């Protein structure tokens, strides 16, 4: 536990995530995406803020994740909108690897 309300949750082994690739993780009715780009790990909400389509079917272009339905874009490093039709930023989360195991930090409180 990192604080009273945040928790590091085990997602998968790091081998499950290829370089320049991303994967979906669902937890307690919420859905997330974890990314690996140039050796760095990132995590965001899984649904596009425009019309709630899942980004797991999207396209990763460098640090940009593009929604599969309308091609709205977000920067996965900070969740900021990077191209229409989106206008609401995507929430981001911290990610870490310990002993080959991948964790995401989520608010649980």
């Amino acid at each position, binding site marked *: 536990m990192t604080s009273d309300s945040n928790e590091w949750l085990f*997602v*998968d082994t790091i081998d*499950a995530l290829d370089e320049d690739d991303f*994967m*979906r*993780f*669902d*937890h*307690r*009715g*919420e*859905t997330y995406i974890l990314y690996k780009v140039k050796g760095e790990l990132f995590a965001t909400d*899984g*649904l596009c803020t*425009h*019309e*709630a*389509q*899942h980004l*797991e*079917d*999207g*396209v*990763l*272009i460098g640090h940009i994740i*593009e929604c*599969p*339905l*309308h*091609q709205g*874009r977000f920067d996965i490093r900070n969740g900021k909108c990077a*191209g*229409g*039709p*989106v*206008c609401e930023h995507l929430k981001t989360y911290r990610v870490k690897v310990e002993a080959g195991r991948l964790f995401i930090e989520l608010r649980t409180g």
Partner: protein
Amino acid sequence: MTTLAAPKKILPATTAASSNVSLDRKLVRNLAQRSDKPGLLWLASWIAALAVSGFLLSLAVASSSTLLTLAATLLLGTILTVPSYAISHECAHGTAFRTRWINETSLWIGSLLYFEEPYHRRYSHTRHHTYTWHVDKDSQMPFDTPMTLKGWLLEISGVALVLYESKVFVRNALGQFSQQTLAFTPENTLGRLKWSARACILIYATLVLLLARGETWIWTYLLLPRLLGGPVMLLFTLLQHVELKENSPSILESTRSFTTSAIGRWLYMNMNNHIEHHLYPQVPFYALNKLRQAVEPQVPAPDKGFWRLNWEVLSVVVRRSFGLGTRARSLRQASHMIVSDKDAKQAKTVTFAHKTTL
């Protein structure tokens, strides 16, 4: 991957999932990869084709032959107009180029030639994908269905497009957005829509002013070709959904793919693979043929032949307008679009009997 609870509800939209089509996720991701090269090659070929057809038109004008001039104008118009629609559409999706500024510049120029404000083009198209061919929800259903001869004439002549888009240009430039525009445009981009509409109007007005001051090349090499090329462009777009089922969650029922020649595929940036495009709109134009092969076992076979299909559409709408049977020879139609010759005859008899009773 462990799923500990069902995720939040995803907005229902007309997608591959709602059409019961599925492909391996890795395959789709690979097909959706972006590159500048195919788009730049296509752009270079378009500019070259415009230069050649423009040169041919100049020769035809110099020859003083009305027939040759008309043919050359139609050629230039087709090469100007169909690709301007296609590049505008592809760039509205942001899939034509990997480099964003090339994509956005091409969106602007393509849309200007096509005659739609570029950002309105992008945002209205999002609704077309969310609610493909859903009455009152799809913002790009340009004609009433089932289509009649009057609807066909308004659509193919370009009159419907010019009237509708002119109204949108003026309203958006004044900041008096329609309810429909407000529904699909992100609030923080309305200002951009307004200024872009003003810029477009300024450019169109400048062209008209220059023409009025005697710059006749604008008429010969731009306006007249655009007007004559319009119907060809609209014949392409008409085939996308005409005679198919409205309000269906399945893209396979609402949308049509069709075969066309290599020239047609180039002009239209492979958008004849229209079912495939709606199933996976993240796949760029240059990967659509590969996508078609991948998805082939799960989708209807494409209808055959651009000219033949358009002839069949015209035949159906004429027959419908005159109360005759509406079954096409090969064009795929939704069942409710089809009235058999026998039923049409009976309906006529009943109508006649009804009239005589009155």
